[in-house]
């Protein structure tokens, strides 16, 4: 297999329901890479949460503003960036799920489902980068 990165770009409207399009695309890529069924379900859910968060909090459900999903296929990993156009830093990395902060639940879920996740606020908007590895990086000890 080539070690060259393959990149897929997807733009969807900031309209709830369209995260299903991103989920389907991510599933399709992950299936072809050989991820297990369970892992693919995890990824789909993580992508859904990232997209809805981007729509609601990043783009404030302004349908005209796009959510951009960039998938990078590497030899042993799939990286998925979900980018919005949100102006302010609308997320702080959650350590635990706080029931009072509904907004944090999606982010908490993502953190449990993927191998690596990083939230950042860039000039052009918010970004969440999620990575899943084909051979999971297990913790050295529990």
């Amino acid at each position: 297999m080539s070690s060259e990165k393959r990149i897929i770009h997807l733009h969807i409207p900031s309209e709830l329901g369209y995260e299903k399009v991103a989920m389907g695309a991510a599933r399709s890529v992950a299936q072809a890479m050989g991820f297990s069924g369970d892992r693919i379900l995890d990824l789909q859910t993580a992508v859904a949460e990232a997209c809805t968060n981007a729509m609601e909090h990043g783009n404030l459900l302004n349908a005209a503003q796009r959510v951009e999903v960039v998938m990078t296929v590497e030899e042993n990993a799939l990286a998925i960036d979900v980018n919005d156009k949100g102006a302010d830093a609308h997320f702080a990395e959650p350590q635990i799920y706080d029931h009072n902060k509904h907004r944090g639940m999606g982010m908490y879920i993502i953190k449990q489902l993927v191998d690596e996740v990083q939230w950042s606020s860039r000039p052009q908007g918010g970004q969440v980068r999620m990575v899943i590895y084909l051979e999971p990086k297990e913790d050295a000890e529990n």
Partner: protein
Amino acid sequence: MPNKKRLVELRIPSIFGYEKVAMVTVMAVAARLGMSGERAEDLRTAVAEACINAIEYGNREDAGTPVTITVSIDDHHLIVDVRDRALGETRPHMGRMVDLQNPPSGTHANMGLFLIHHLVDKVDIVCRDNGTHVHMAMRLPEMVLH
């Protein structure tokens, strides 16, 4: 084009197999718009064929050159535009049915165009120096969700 509204845009590498991402993406949008069953499958196959032609002939399988798939709607149709960057030769002519006495020698591109032509309601193909654009439209069922 009356009231054409762009919904989803996808760019895939020009590598065989990635047309599946386009198929799934278009199907997800079609499902949202109430298209299902035979009509959806027809569109799915047409999208596969258009992407494959773009990958193979338009972009000459150059991995770094994308095929762009745009899904839009207008008042009555779901529209899928497939664009390549015209690195290679493009074949806008329609193909014919298979004659096993004279089987097509490896030119499944013609078969692909033939299928697209018979599967979607309307297809236009425009070849320019900067790329070929396959424009496919399917009439939506009357109860369309906007």
